[in-house]
C-alpha cells in the first residue's frame, strides 16, 4: 500500500493521501469508515466463512463417500448440512457481495465513499459476532441447529435443540447487518452519483446491486419476523406454528419462502452485474442490450415475490394455487433467458481473450444456464412431485449457486484485484484455479442430478446401495473443489505481496470510472467528482 504515493496520479490525490491516510495498527480496522477498508474486511470475512462452510461440506461428502455410517453420527450430520447451508448463504455469499459493493460501487458512480460510513462500519462488525455465535452452537449441549437451513417448524421449534435460541439471535444479527448494508447501498446509489451519471448510465453491477438492496430490505425483515415468531413459540407460549394451539406449521413455510425465494435472487443478481461487466471487457465490445438487462433484472426481482410456494408443491396446496405458482415460476425463465442471450450475443463477433475473470464468467454462463434448465424442470408442479427434496434439487441449487454466485465472486476478484492491490495476479495459477474448480464442481454436482432422479432424498447421512457409485464420484469431486480453494488463497496473498505492477486500466476492453483512478486505488477516491459524459 506504500506504493500509493509514488504512483502517477495528480497532486490533489496525493495531498489527500497525506492528510487522510489509513490509521496505523489494529484500530484502523476496528474504527474505519473507509469503504475500501470495510470492503476488504467483508471479503476476508466471507472467505473465512467460505472455508468454514466448505470444511463442513467436506465432512458431508466424506460421510457420503460410501453407504453406511463411517465418520459422523446422523445427529451431527444434520448439524453439518444445516450449518453448511447457513454459513454459505449468510456468511460467505452475501457478505462477499456486500464487500464487492463496498469496494466498487462508490468508485463506479464517482462517489467519495458510502453515504453512511459509520453505519457501514457497524454493519460489518456485527457479522463476526453473529458468525461466532452461530458457530458456537455446535459446542453447546444438544448440538447446533440440526433442522436444515430452512428450519421448518415444528422440527425447529418444539423439537429443536436448546441452542436454537442462539441460532435465532444470530439470524437476527445477520439480518440487521444485511439490512444496514443494503440501506447504505441504496442511499449511496441514489444520492452520491457524480454529475452526469444518470440512472441509465450506471454500470450493471450498480443496477443489479440497487435491485438486490431493495430485495434485502423487503425480505430480511420478514425472516426476522419468522425467527421472532419461533422464539415466541419456544419461550413465550405462543402458537404461531403449533397446530395444537391453533397455529399452523405450513404457515412457517409460507413466511420462510416469502423471504427465501427473493433471498436466492439476492445471491444471484449481483453476479449478473459482475458478469455483465466482465464479458464486454474481454470481448472488447459493448454489452448487447443494456436497457433490456436492466428491465430483465427488475422483472426477475418482481417475479421473485410471487413464486415462493413452488418450494412447497408437495405440502398440499389447492389446485388453483399450485397452477398459479407453477405458471409464475415458469415465467422467470423469460427474463433469465434474455440475460443469457444477451451475454452470448455480446461474445458473438467480439475479440475475445480468456484471462481468469473471463474464464470464470464464461463458465458462469454455461453452468448457470444448466442450473436454470433444472430450475425450469422443477417448476413443473407434477414433475416436482418426483424431484422435490431429492438430490436433483441439491444439484439444481448448487449449479446456480456455485458457478452462479461463487464463480462470479472469483471472476470479480480476479477482475478487480489489480485495482485493489496494484499488482497483477499470477495468471497461470489463476487458470489452474479455474480449471480445477470447474472440473471439481462438475464432478461433484453433475452426478447429483442422476442420484436425485433415481430417487435419493436429500439431507440423509446414509443411502441405499444403488446410489453408491455416483456418490463416490461426487465426493471425489468435492474434495478436489475444496482443496483447490487453498490455491485461490495463495494467489490472492501472492498478489497482495507483490508481482507485476498493474496499470490504472489493466484490461484492454474494460470500461467504467473505477479504471480512471490509479492502481492500487488511493485510500480516498473521487473526493472531487469526475465528469461523466
Amino acid at each position: 500500500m506504500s506504493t500509493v504515493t509514488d504512483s502517477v496520479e495528480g497532486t490533489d490525490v496525493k495531498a489527500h493521501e497525506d492528510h487522510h491516510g489509513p490509521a496505523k495498527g489494529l484500530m484502523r480496522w476496528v474504527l474505519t469508515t473507509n469503504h475500501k477498508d470495510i470492503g476488504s474486511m467483508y471479503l476476508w470475512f466471507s472467505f473465512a466463512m467460505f472455508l468454514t462452510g466448505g470444511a463442513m461440506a467436506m465432512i458431508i461428502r466424506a460421510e457420503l463417500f460410501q453407504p453406511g455410517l463411517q465418520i459422523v453420527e446422523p445427529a451431527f450430520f444434520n448439524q453439518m448440512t444445516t450449518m453448511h447451508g447457513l454459513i454459505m448463504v449468510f456468511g460467505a455469499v452475501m457478505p462477499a457481495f456486500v464487500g464487492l459493493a463496498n469496494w466498487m460501487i462508490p468508485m463506479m458512480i464517482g462517489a467519495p465513499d458510502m453515504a453512511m460510513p459509520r453505519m457501514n462500519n457497524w454493519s460489518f462488525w456485527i457479522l463476526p459476532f453473529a458468525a461466532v455465535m452461530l458457530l458456537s452452537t455446535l459446542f453447546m449441549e444438544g448440538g447446533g441447529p440440526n433442522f436444515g437451513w430452512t428450519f421448518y417448524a415444528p422440527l425447529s421449534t418444539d423439537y429443536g435443540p436448546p441452542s436454537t435460541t442462539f441460532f435465532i439471535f444470530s439470524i437476527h444479527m445477520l439480518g440487521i447487518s444485511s439490512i444496514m448494508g443494503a440501506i447504505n447501498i441504496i442511499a449511496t446509489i441514489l444520492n452520491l452519483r457524480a454529475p452526469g451519471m444518470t440512472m441509465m448510465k450506471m454500470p450493471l453491477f450498480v443496477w443489479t446491486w440497487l435491485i438486490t438492496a431493495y430485495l434485502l430490505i423487503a425480505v430480511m425483515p420478514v425472516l426476522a419476523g419468522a425467527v421472532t415468531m419461533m422464539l415466541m413459540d419456544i419461550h413465550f407460549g405462543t402458537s404461531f406454528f403449533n397446530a395444537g394451539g391453533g397455529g399452523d406449521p405450513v404457515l412457517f413455510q409460507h413466511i420462510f419462502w416469502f423471504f427465501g425465494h427473493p433471498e436466492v435472487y439476492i445471491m444471484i443478481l449481483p453476479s449478473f452485474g459482475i458478469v455483465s461487466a466482465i464479458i464486454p471487457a474481454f470481448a472488447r465490445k459493448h454489452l448487447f442490450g443494456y436497457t433490456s438487462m436492466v428491465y430483465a433484472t427488475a422483472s426477475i426481482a418482481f417475479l421473485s415475490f410471487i413464486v415462493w410456494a413452488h418450494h412447497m408443491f408437495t405440502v398440499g396446496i389447492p389446485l388453483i394455487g399450485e397452477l398459479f405458482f407453477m405458471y409464475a415460476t415458469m415465467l422467470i425463465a423469460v427474463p433469465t433467458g434474455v440475460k443469457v442471450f444477451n451475454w452470448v450475443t455480446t461474445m458473438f463477433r467480439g475479440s475475445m481473450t480468456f484471462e481468469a475473470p473471463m474464464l470464470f464468467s464464461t463458465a458462469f454462463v454455461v453452468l448457470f444456464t444448466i442450473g436454470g434448465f433444472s430450475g425450469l424442470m422443477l417448476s413443473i408442479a407434477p414433475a416436482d412431485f418426483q424431484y422435490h427434496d431429492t438430490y436433483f434439487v441439491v444439484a439444481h441449487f448448487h449449479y446456480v449457486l456455485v458457478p452462479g454466485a461463487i464463480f462470479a465472486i472469483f471472476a470479480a476478484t480476479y477482475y478487480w484485484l489489480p485495482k485493489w492491490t496494484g499488482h497483477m495476479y499470477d495468471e497461470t495459477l489463476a487458470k489452474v484455479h479455474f480449471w480445477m474448480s470447474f472440473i471439481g464442481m462438475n464432478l461433484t454436482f453433475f452426478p447429483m442430478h442422476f442420484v436425485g432422479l433415481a430417487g435419493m432424498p436429500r439431507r440423509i447421512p446414509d443411502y441405499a446401495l444403488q446410489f453408491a457409485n455416483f456418490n463416490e464420484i461426487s465426493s471425489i469431486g468435492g474434495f478436489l473443489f475444496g482443496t483447490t480453494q487453498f490455491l485461490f488463497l495463495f494467489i490472492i496473498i501472492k498478489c497482495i505481496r507483490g508481482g507485476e505492477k498493474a496499470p490504472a486500466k489493466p484490461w484492454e476492453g474494460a470500461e467504467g470510472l473505477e479504471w480512471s483512478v490509479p492502481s492500487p486505488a488511493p485510500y480516498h477516491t473521487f473526493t472531487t467528482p469526475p465528469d461523466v459524459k
Partner: protein
Amino acid sequence: MKLVATGFVALLSIIPLSIKAAQQVCTMIIRSLRSGQRKTWGCKGIVMQQAKSLSLLAGLVVAGSGHAAWEVNMTEGVTAVSRNIYGLHMTIMTICAVIGLIVFSVMFYSIYKHRKSKGAVAQQFHESTLVEIVWTSIPFLILVLMAIPATKTLVDIYNTDEADVDIKITGYQWKWQYEYLGEDVSFFSNLSTPTEQIQNVRNKNPNYLLEVDEPLVLPVGKKVRFLVTAADVIHSWWVPALAVKRDAIPGFINEAWTNIDTPGTYRGQCAELCGKNHAYMPIVVEARSEEEFEQWLQDKKEQASRERELTDKVWSMDELMVRGEQVYNKVCAVCHQPNGAGMPPIFPALKGSPMATEANQVGAHVDIVMNGKKGSAMQSFAGQLSEVDIAAVITYERNAWGNNTGEMVTPKEIVEYKKTGVYEEDPAKQTMPDNQQASL
C-alpha cells in the same frame, strides 16, 4: 510458476486417490476390529469392496452390482400418473437440452472463432428492440406449450374422487403407521435393516435401508386414496414408482391417490427432513392382485385377534425375554443402541440406569414406555405396541446387558395399567426364570 502449477495439479489429482486408499485401509482396520469371530464374511466384504473400487479407478467400469448402481433417470413407475410425469420430465428435459445445444453452440462457435489471438476484431453492434422481442416471445411460447400437458397431469393428480380403498398414513419419528379405514387393520412399519449393516460390520443387503418389517399391502387395479398426516414433525411419504409424494403435517390431513397396474414391491423413503433418523424410515409398498389383497386383509385381522389372545396367556420369563429382544431391536435400539448403552445425553443408557435396575422404579419404567417423556425424543408406545410387546420389552430391558433384576412385567399388568393409569404388581405372577424354577 508453470512448474508450481503442474505440481499443484499433480498433487490435487493424487488427493482423491489417496483419500480413497486411506478410506479403504481405515475401513479394513475398523472391520477387522469390529467383526471379531465373524471374520470369514468380513474378509469377503473387504475383497469385494476393493474389487469394486479398483474397477472404479480403472476407468469407472460397471462392477458387481450391475446396472442398478448407475441408474441415471427417473423411474417410469407403475401407474398412469407416474408415466405421465415421466413423459413430462422427458419432454421438458429434451426441450431444455435442445435450447441448450443451440445457445451453447453459438457460444462455443464464437469462443472458437472470435478470439483476439485469431485476429478477430470486435464488431460494435448493440441494442436491437426487434431481437429482444424475438428472444422474449419465443421462450414464452415454448413455456405455454410446456404448461398445457403439465396442467392436465396436475388436474388428474388432484382428482381424489371415487376411491376404492382408503388408507391413513401417519408419519412418526421414525416410522410410518398405516390404517386401513373401515377395515380395522392398522400397523406400524419400521426399518428392518440390522444396525450391524449400518455400522459396516456386516455386509449390506441388496435392499439396504429400503426394507421394512411390515410393508404396506395394496391391491392392483384399484384406486387407493391416501390420507397423510403426522404425529410429531413434518414427514413426507414418497414412493417414486407411484409418483406419490405428500407431506405429512402434524394437525392437518393431506390427500393423494394411486392406481397401481403391476403387482410388485415398490420402495421409497421419507422425503422431508424429520430429525436424526430421517434416512432410516423407508416405505415399502407391496402391490398384490385383488384376491391376494383380500386374503391378506383377512389374515391380518385374524392375526390381530390372536395377538389379543396372547395377552391372556401366562407368560414365562424366557418367553418374554425372547420376544422382548425382538421388540427392543426393532423399536428401541435405534436410539438406546442394541447394547443398551444409549447415546448420552440425548438418548440415555438403559444399561445400569436406575430406572431399569431399581425395584421401586418399575412403575416409572412402565410409565415412560407407555406415555413417553414430554420434551424428549422418548415417544409414547402405548398406542404403537401391544400389551404383550410392552411387557416383553420392559422385562427385557430390566434383565438384559447385566441389568439382571430378575423382575418381570406381565401383559396382564400392562392391561391393568391401561385401565387405571397406575402400575401395580400382580402378586400372582411367577417371576423366577424357568431354569431356577426347575431347580427348586
